[in-house]
């Protein structure tokens, strides 16, 4: 019998295949799009339109050491250093057309959704204007209320219909509602499997190294609506279930402390941020990513609500509750909070999230300055001091504190 490939290999292959599929389509003369990470992926999937994700590419470029070069190129084009580094890297890529760390085809259209931030709109408008290509925007404004109201759902729904129509016009494809239903079904299956797999973090010890999720999430973002992704995450969940039974983990060594990592990974310094935690036996068992990319819905209206309930779009009370729930479910000993200069929206709520975790979950917290893709906004020594102090507080807590 042929031995089954481990899920992590399958996931890497799926991520690679998504880029290859776009290249093949481009080379065959098909239209290829660039897509925002929280754009409803079910739409291009239903139309069988290949899209690639600038945010994923920017993260990969940053992780491979190209972040500073690309950011500086964008700054040379006139883009401010205050802009999101993903945006700067992508604008540099749109100008250079190639990148040694990770290449992807140039777009024939862009699909924008501002449920992650409004910088996204200007970024995609700049792309559309510079490259002279059409832009489709699904406007999902920041939700000031706790729940997603009917009028918001109607507003977004209307745009969905229009987005589909425009996309058909651009690509010459025909829309089949059954295919949309199918892609929604698959996307749900993937999300459920992803949530199930990540939920294994709650076991003590956790069967997975939390930093694994930073890699796996690429597929949850860009290939949600594919059967291969659903199957790979289902297999990942099975592997974690087996690890729990066997008492094994992808985290090597003793898991002394269970921590939440709040915020986007600091991709340019991934190894450094990881090593400082790993050296002290801290394993990440809680991230906002896990829940953020688990889009669960039964029908179109619920899908509209799901795309509103994403981290940077949800109201701060809901955002805090979500984190507190994750923290309690995973029994964290402390929280490491990335104040990410690139992402003003996510970082802007961090002082309050930090306070809520400290006071309502009752765990020590530490914040550090960094960036999702611009390496210049992180200082290793400052990070190390904070992490060591944080560790020492957890040590004191374990001892029961006091002298």
């Amino acid at each position, binding site marked *: 019998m042929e031995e089954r490939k481990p899920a992590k290999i399958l996931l890497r292959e799926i991520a690679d295949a998504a880029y290859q599929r776009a290249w093949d389509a481009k080379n065959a003369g098909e239209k290829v799009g660039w897509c925002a990470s929280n754009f409803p992926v079910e739409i291009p999937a239903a139309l069988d339109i290949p899209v690639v994700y600038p945010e994923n590419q920017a993260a990969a470029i940053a992780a491979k050491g190209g972040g500073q070069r690309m950011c500086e190129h964008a700054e040379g084009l006139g883009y401010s250093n205050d802009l999101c580094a993903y945006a700067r890297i992508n604008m540099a890529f749109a100008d250079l057309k190639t990148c040694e760390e990770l290449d992807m085809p140039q777009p024939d259209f862009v699909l924008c959704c501002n449920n992650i931030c409004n910088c996204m709109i200007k970024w995609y408008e700049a792309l559309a204007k510079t490259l002279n290509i059409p832009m489709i925007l699904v406007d999902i404004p920041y939700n000031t209320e706790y729940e997603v109201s009917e009028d918001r759902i109607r507003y977004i729904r209307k745009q969905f219909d229009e987005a589909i129509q425009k996309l058909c016009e651009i690509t010459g494809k025909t829309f089949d509602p059954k295919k949309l239903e199918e892609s929604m079904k698959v996307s749900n299956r993937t999300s459920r499997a992803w949530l199930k797999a990540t939920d294994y973090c709650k076991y003590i010890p956790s069967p997975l190294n939390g930093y694994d999720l930073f890699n796996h999430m690429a597929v949850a973002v860009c290939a949600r609506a594919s059967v291969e992704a659903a199957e790979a995450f289902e297999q990942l969940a099975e592997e974690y279930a087996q690890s729990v039974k066997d008492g094994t983990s992808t985290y090597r060594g003793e898991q002394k402390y269970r921590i939440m990592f709040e915020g986007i990974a600091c991709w340019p310094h991934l190894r450094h941020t990881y090593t400082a935690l790993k050296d002290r036996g801290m394993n990440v068992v809680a991230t906002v990513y896990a829940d953020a990319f688990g889009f669960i819905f039964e029908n179109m209206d619920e899908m509209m609500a799901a795309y509103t309930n994403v981290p940077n779009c949800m109201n701060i009370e809901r955002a805090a509750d979500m984190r507190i729930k994750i923290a309690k479910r995973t029994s964290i000993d402390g929280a490491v909070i990335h104040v990410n200069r690139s992402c003003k929206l996510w970082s802007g709520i961090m002082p309050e999230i930090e306070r809520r975790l400290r006071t309502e979950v009752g765990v020590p917290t530490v*914040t550090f300055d960094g960036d999702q893709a611009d390496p210049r906004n992180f200082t290793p020594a*400052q990070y190390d001091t904070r992490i060591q102090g944080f560790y020492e507080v957890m040590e004191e807590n374990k001892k029961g504190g*006091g002298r």
Partner: protein
Amino acid sequence: MNGKYAMGIDIGSATSKCVLIGKDGNIAANSLIASGTGTAGPSMAVEAAFGKLGVTRENISAIVSTGYGRNSFPGADKTMSELSCHARGAYHLYPEAKTVIDIGGQDAKVLHISNGALSQFLMNDKCAAGTGRFLEVMSHVLQLDISEMSEAGARAEKPLEISSTCTVFAESEVISHLSRSASINDIVAGIHKSVATRTAGLVKRLGVIPEVFMTGGVARNENVRHYLSRELGVDIKTSPLAQYAGALGAALFALELTNNKE
């Protein structure tokens, strides 16, 4: 671990401090050299402290290093973050302390102490404003010695506003005031107020639990303490040994290490 003294060394960005304590936990010798990590400062600080007691490394039971240069100090038995060390040292100097404010050369920290140990902390973001380095830059612009700043601020009649949160921008503000012939004392008071406001924001975020104790080099600046106390609405205690709190805390951890091994 047979030595008579436990040693703590705090290697900061601007200074190196060394403290030797006896088995009773009392300070036997202390030294400070005005150069920090990456210089001869740390070894000079050790030599100076050893010289005061006429001892050598043989007489030291354990060494704990702290501060930004903690990982590069040869011979340390353990490193501890300056966060834990300042909390430990502050608690030793002033056992009633529940909130500790430390403004060092490179950063500002607020620490909460519970049962004598660090229980939570907050540090400034990467901006240099509100740190000792900020005051140092300003003293150069004003051609004052850093030790003269406190008295100059206290003599102010109408403290000016220094509102920029960036050191470089604040420097421009100070230069603008100077070019308008504003009083040096009023400018200095404005600088101190700006440090106090910025630090107070950090303290309020974590919570002000009396009593409040201040450590680090800036604790010696009475005028900064005055404005900080006003911002927070509480008395701020300090000690002549405040600048040694980190090294003292490290020495106390070294003593614990000695006791645990014996």
